[in-house]
């Protein structure tokens, strides 16, 4: 089987991951809705995962994919706790606009 990386090239994957990561950064900076900010963080995590898998194929080493597995577990935990915090914030403030989160007192 002819390998995928010979036909595509690892640099194309690097560029794709960089673009995806930057879109995530842009989303965090641009939007005020906290859930969209969360989605942007997920996009950034996915960009890193994609690069992990690309280099795992490049080095023919499965350890990179094991790392992606752990990073998915951490992302799942992060989203669960983060959304619970957002629900609590929404219950206290009535909105999840990040501009409204200025004071620590609930």
């Amino acid at each position: 089987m002819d390998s995928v990386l010979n036909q595509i090239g690892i640099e194309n994957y690097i560029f794709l991951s960089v673009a995806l990561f930057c879109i995530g950064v842009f989303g965090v900076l641009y939007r005020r809705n906290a859930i969209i900010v969360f989605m942007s963080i997920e996009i950034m995590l996915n960009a890193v995962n994609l690069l992990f898998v690309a280099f795992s194929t490049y080095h023919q080493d499965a350890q990179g994919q094991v790392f992606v597995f752990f990073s998915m577990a951490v992302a799942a935990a992060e989203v669960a706790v983060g959304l619970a915090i957002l629900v609590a914030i929404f219950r206290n403030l009535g909105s999840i606009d990040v501009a409204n989160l200025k004071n620590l007192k609930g």
Partner: protein
Amino acid sequence: MSTVLIIFCILAAVTLASAFMTIFTKNPIHSAIYLVICFFSIAGHYLLFNAQFLALVHIIVYSGAIMILMLFTLMLMNLNKEDEVHKPRITRLGAVVSFLLIISVLIAIFIQTKPIVGPYDTTGEDYQSIKVLGQVLLDQDNGFMVAFEFASILLLVAMIGAVLLSKKEKSSK
């Protein structure tokens, strides 16, 4: 152009476009739908690498669990209306400028380092099927057993924390 390269280009275009639409749509529900499309195209990238296990887990965890969680939260808060106030213009301008700066600098860096990334040669040995992946993950000597157990503890703690945080408080105020 080979077929694989064409597939890659289509997948990459879908990934980037849906990621952009996630950020630019006004309605949060539409954002969530675009994010699901983005995750599916990333799973397509994994399949292109022949990483079947990761593609499966990615679809189950991201498109299944995480997106359902986000959609439920959106519907719980009744946010599916387009009344979001935009950030002040100067902040948005700053966001666009920093996005362009970061992406141009990073891509320029990686174009410059391209000669270091050498040619890729395959040995044809199986290294990423589910069987091999399981052996690497749970190997006796240099596996990831400790990290695996800690991941389970992390998920347990996250579950307890999420339940505690989102539980209705007693009216003590």
